[in-house]
């Protein structure tokens, strides 16, 4: 069913928001937080369109990764993990092999249907 938007009186105290922001905003450099802000707006015309939206997110993230890499190399800091560096991963090996298996199954299924 359609939801009828009800007009409500809502608060948006911009002056207080700016004051509160100034009270806790920390003075940081890129290497403290590794945080970037995309200089370009996303071109999402229809947020319901999954393909278009996800592509815009992907492009923003890719820009950030590439920009960060240049900042790291300018500061001569290591960025990519070397091949021989091993440490605990976020997802377990067992889970990753399940993912690989499902990808294989999927591609086998596509081949079989062709």
């Amino acid at each position, binding site marked *: *069913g359609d*939801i*009828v*938007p*009800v007009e*409500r009186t*809502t*608060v*948006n*105290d911009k002056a*207080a*928001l*700016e004051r*509160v*922001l100034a*009270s*806790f*905003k*920390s*003075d*940081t450099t890129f*290497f*403290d*937080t*590794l*945080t*970037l*802000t*995309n200089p*370009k*707006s*996303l071109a999402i015309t229809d*947020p319901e369109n999954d*393909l278009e*939206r996800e*592509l*815009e*997110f*992907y492009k*923003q*993230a*890719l*820009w*950030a*990764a*590439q920009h*960060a*890499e240049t900042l790291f190399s300018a500061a001569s800091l*290591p*960025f*990519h*993990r070397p091949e021989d*560096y091993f*440490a*605990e*991963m*976020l*997802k377990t090996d067992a889970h*990753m092999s399940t993912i690989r298996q499902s*990808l294989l199954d999927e591609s086998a299924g596509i081949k079989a249907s062709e």
Partner: protein
Amino acid sequence: GDGEATEEAPRPPYKQRVLVLSSRGISQRQRHLMNDLTGLLPHAKKDAKLDSKHQLPLVNELCDLSSCNNALFFEARRKYNDLYLWAAKAPNGPSIRFHVLNTHTMDELKMTGNCLKGSRPIVVFDKQFDESPHFKVIKEVLMNIFAVPKTARRAKPFVDHVLNISIADGKIWFRNYQILDIPPADTEAPTSSSTGAKGKAAKQDGPKMSLNEIGPRFVLQPVKIFEGSFNGATLYENKEFVPSSSVAGAYKNARASKYKGRKG
């Protein structure tokens, strides 16, 4: 000696610690999301479920006990199976209450990426975060929580993932991608014919890189911003937010009036 120290006041070190906890009555899926996020935050500490549903400022005391200056509190509402997420700067505020939508956890097989446990992500914010006061406050709070500080003891020394925080449709979309130092394979990269030209240009000029989604995915709809941490004056209220109870109520009323019409 002393003269040097007073010449340039040293910047206070950027230190953040996050307390992660939930209310009681959280569902399995919601708990999964919480665990996924905790796994991404080496500077986080998980606490037991909060017993009280009505005294949320208690979270500030728990933060103090674990020397955390940030809190992520997952507030489950059983009736409509809703999840609300509080992001707070303890103990003085501000705090933000979000409605969590469209959750996908890291367990899903579509999410093929992986990264080191506790590596520091590149956090990237949408341009729109700098364009209105409430989004500026939200950006700073989310950065304090999701950007892993240099000082985090368990952080790993390499960069292998990006947290992408975008705004679309007035809501905040959270994505986590693995960074691969290989160019995208045609089957994996989400490229369509309309943007093919741009993609090709980036491939040739830029560093060879591609991304693989790790998860989790979720959407945060801001509900309210409070001046304090779990208390204080309301600074912002989202007029587009419709609580599940009014959606259900409107549906019920519509059915009731239809019935009345039939009877009358």
